[in-house]
């Protein structure tokens, strides 16, 4: 007890940082989920709501960034603490980006609202569900300090990539069938592509979690199929 005393404040601050990051992650996940829901259900209200919340997300990211700098200024961290705080800085950026994607998709949802959908959206929500799962895995890995959980993220990203490919092929076909669909289709294409990107960012997050926990630089590519050129 006496021994750990010197680190009490440091650890309190570090968990506070982690908590902020979790909150950010929750917000990003929600933005993604709700915007896709809005897209699917053509709900402008929800889409606007996502856009309104984007500011809060940006602000939280800014705060995390400043608090990380503060943490460095206060504790001169080394080793695991240093890895963790720098990782948090990085992860915050990735998460913010994911939140932004939520905004982008919400905009798409608003554009699409009221227009008849050319097909029922099935794969896109599936992608989103997978992304949520990835994000949760990565975050609980960080929270519970269990590297194994973060590793499970990588194969899931392959799944997301597959889904995107599939959607793309499908949409291309649909477009070619009826050029009137082109506008809507490119929009959806974009959404799919965006979700694929979100997957990439979550993969980055997972890599960071692993680095902060183990000190090893782990590249997701080691855990998944080689990317075709």
């Amino acid at each position, binding site marked *: 007890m006496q021994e750990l005393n010197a680190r*009490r404040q440091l650890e309190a601050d570090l968990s506070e940082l982690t908590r902020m990051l979790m909150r950010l992650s929750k917000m990003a996940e929600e933005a993604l989920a709700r915007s896709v829901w809005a897209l699917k259900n053509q709900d402008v209200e929800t889409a606007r709501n996502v856009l309104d919340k984007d500011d809060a997300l940006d602000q939280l990211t800014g705060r995390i960034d400043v608090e990380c700098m503060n943490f460095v200024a206060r504790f001169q961290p080394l080793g695991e603490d240093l890895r963790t705080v720098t990782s948090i800085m990085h992860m915050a950026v990735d998460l913010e980006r994911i939140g932004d994607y939520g905004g982008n998709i919400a905009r798409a949802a608003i554009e699409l609202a009221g227009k008849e959908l050319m097909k029922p959206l099935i794969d896109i929500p599936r992608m989103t569900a997978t992304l949520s799962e990835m994000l949760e895995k990565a975050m609980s890995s960080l929270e519970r300090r269990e590297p194994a959980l973060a590793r499970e993220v990588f194969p899931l990203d392959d799944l997301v990539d597959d889904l995107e490919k599939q959607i793309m092929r499908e949409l291309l076909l649909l477009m070619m069938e009826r050029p009137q669909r082109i506008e809507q289709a490119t929009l959806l294409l974009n959404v799919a592509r965006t979700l694929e990107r979100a997957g990439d960012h979550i993969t980055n997050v997972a890599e960071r979690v692993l680095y902060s926990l183990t000190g090893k630089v782990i590249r997701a590519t080691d855990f998944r199929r080689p990317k075709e050129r």
Partner: protein
Amino acid sequence: MKGNVQIRSQNVNLYYGPAKVLKDITFDIFDHTVTALIGPSGCGKSSWLRCLNRMNDYIAGARVEGEILIDEHDIYARDTDVIALRRNVGMVFQKPNPFPMSIYDNVAYGPRLHGVRSREQLDGIVERSLRGAALWTEVKDKLTSSGIGLSGGQQQRLCIARAIATEPKILLMDEPTSALDPMATARIEELVRDLKKNFTVVIVTHNMQQAARVSDFTAFFLLGELVEYEVTTKIFTAPDDKRTEDYITGRFG
């Protein structure tokens, strides 16, 4: 965070003989906050701190101009009772300096001076003060043994207990951890953060990380001037004044 103003320093100049050591120091310190004073050696941090409880009175040739108001009362006014002032403004020094008496007597020293005689009352004060300084559990079974026998960190906490035994509103600390090892330092820092519940704390420190860790506000002194007084976070990541920036990045000092 900003509450009421507890200490108001207005155009304070301090001279040691002909040398002007503090120049026009004007700023307000809020109650129930920790304020850190930083700056290179000799910039006048300790001097300003010692103005607050008039410890400079004992230095031959020291002369204060301007006003220092504590709770809106000018402490350099004619009618100020210095002894009452010091009771109201506790001080903790750089090197732990417990008196060579028992732990109990150390803490009871101040109250006794000020006329507390009853044993029960003193017992109460001693326990409360030691608890307040996070030392009670460690020493409660050896209150009669000498304060000198404690470890450095414990000694410093004893000094804090002694200072808060007279129930001051303000606690001044002049580099209270510079003679301590990192572990003891961490405990004192934790205590300082805790003390602001009941006191207004002003702490001089050379360790910028320490200032960043414990304080809410930070004042940067340079060559007897107050250069910048700001929320601590801002001072250490993005100060407004170029000189502050230069100091915290080690361009001088």
